[in-house]
């Protein structure tokens, strides 16, 4: 009898090890994907630059040189200056802080709401689930792009609202993914076993459901960040997002577009920064999806 127990625990151990090697497998697969690695490295570099900006930016954020005015890229100003003689590289670095922060924070808001909502709906099931998902369906059908513009008009254009508004849009898909994950996991034998062993719902969610649902959530999170950043840039371009004296890549692109005829570098460099970041995130997300073997469509 005692040997029986030990083989059982041996089996559990094996399973635990397999669980770990699943992530190792994914890591190896991800590392083989050159585009995903390049995306990840670029992204990491941009994040480090954004964090260190106040110390390593070549010029002061507010520094102007009205005598110099707009100048093409040179040794003193690698990416040129704008009409006020402000260093473009410095502007892009500070703008990147805002753009990346909006991307990550708004996504975190979406993640928090979506995962909680989906987990509760999926785990509780029944009528609660039906009502909760019905609400998601209705919200899904709302034209949110127009609503965000409306929100920004009605409540003024502040960054906090921008985070909330964008986060409030993006959590819906997250909730759907999480719910379907939880629902399919609930019917799995190992969860039934855990229930019959008398594990509490919180323990089951924490130990069994969340780790197993993590893959799709990670992938979708990575792919949500670029769409959030695009949304911020879109609003800022229209003048409805980030307001001066703060800046973001979207705002820099909109300034650049106004003067591109004379000073094309004011459009090209912020555009390059935004596009490179979006590229990196999309490639990393696609790579993660393949590595973690997540099915389902991103589009």
């Amino acid at each position, binding site marked *: 009898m005692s040997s029986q127990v030990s083989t059982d625990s041996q089996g559990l151990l094996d399973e635990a090890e397999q669980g770990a090697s699943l992530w190792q497998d994914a890591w190896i697969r991800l590392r083989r994907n050159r585009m995903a690695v390049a995306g990840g490295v670029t992204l990491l570099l941009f994040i480090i630059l954004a964090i260190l900006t106040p110390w390593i930016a070549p010029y002061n954020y507010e520094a102007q040189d009205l005598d110099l005015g707009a100048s093409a890229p040179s040794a003193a100003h690698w990416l040129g200056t704008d009409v006020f003689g402000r260093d473009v590289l410095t502007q892009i670095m500070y703008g990147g802080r805002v753009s990346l922060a909006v991307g990550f924070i708004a996504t975190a808001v979406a993640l928090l709401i979506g995962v909680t909502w989906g987990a509760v709906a999926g785990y509780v099931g029944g009528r609660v689930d039906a009502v909760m998902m019905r609400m998601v369906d*209705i919200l899904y059908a709302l034209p949110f792009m*127009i*609503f965000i*513009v409306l929100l920004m008009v009605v409540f*003024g254009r502040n960054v906090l609202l921008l985070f909330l508004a964008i986060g409030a849009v993006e959590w819906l898909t997250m909730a759907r993914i999480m719910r379907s994950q939880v629902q399919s996991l609930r019917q799995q034998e190992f969860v039934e076993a855990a229930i019959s062993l008398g594990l509490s719902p919180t323990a089951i969610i924490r130990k069994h459901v969340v780790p197993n649902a993590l893959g799709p959530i990670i992938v979708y999170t990575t792919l949500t960040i670029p769409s959030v950043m695009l949304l911020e840039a879109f609003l800022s371009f*229209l003048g409805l997002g980030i307001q001066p004296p703060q800046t973001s890549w979207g705002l820099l692109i909109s300034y650049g577009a106004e003067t*591109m005829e004379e000073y094309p570098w004011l459009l090209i460099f912020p555009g390059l920064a935004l596009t490179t970041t*979006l590229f990196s995130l999309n490639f990393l997300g696609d790579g993660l999806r393949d590595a973690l073997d997540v099915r389902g469509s991103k*589009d």
Partner: protein
Amino acid sequence: MLRFILSRLLQAIPVIFIVITATFFLVRAAPGGPFDAEKVVLPEVKRALEAQYRLDLPLHEQYFAYLGDLAQGELGPSFKYPGRSVNEILFSGLPVTAELGLYALLIALLIGVTAGVFASLKPNTRQDYIPMSLAMIGICMPSFLLGPLLVLVFGIYLEWLPISGWGAIPGDKVLPSITLGAAYAAYVARLSRAGMLEILSQDYIRTARAKGLPEWLVVVKHALRGGLIPVVAFLGPAFAGLLAGSFVVETIFQIPGLGRFYVQAAFNRDYTMILGTTVFLSSLIVLFNLVSDVAAAWLNPRLRSQISGGGK
């Protein structure tokens, strides 16, 4: 099928109702009245104006009066342009935006489907990688960057095409349509590639090939219909995206369409205009989602028999 359409229609009604209600109260909650902006208005004039716009009534009466107007298709007068109704402004912009959206959609479908199908025929070869990399660029290149860049290259440096306007100079519709359509071409390419890859691995395709059908006939006659279902389902969301995209494109190219009016109304705080436009555009989007859902269901034989079989 009819039941399916009806049930979808019933789902759309609460959505539109929520849009109307939420927009109405949001706009009314906005700080600052529409008349306390620039000039000082005499109290009696202000009162007369408020009566004209029904601002003197209690909020709930305003709401029900507005619902009554909407039921008659009346979106009310504009705050900023006295004497012009929101309906007039909307319908002057609608044909322009509809035309722009149509061209953009045609570009997206033509280029997207061709590239996607092409890529799916030889997956993981150069024929796949090149169009798909281009599609990735299309997705990562937002319209507000692509537009100015196209203007810079083709309008200013090469001087091939006009840089703004709509229908005034020949060729001025080219750049806006491409700018708006490019990102959707990229999405359509990815969707049709994925859809085709799935269909091409099905048994009935193998059967068709085993019968000795030429490959192009297998693709055109058997695979396309199923492979393009995701694209059809995407058309609904794409329509919403195209409308939002028209905000940017019409601003860049100075096109007098719905999108530009909406952005202008947002800046002018023209509340009735914002309210009217939001309700109008939202209803259009909800309607279009409905149409694309129904079309996608109709194209999918499995789903169709399920629907006709009396399910919901």
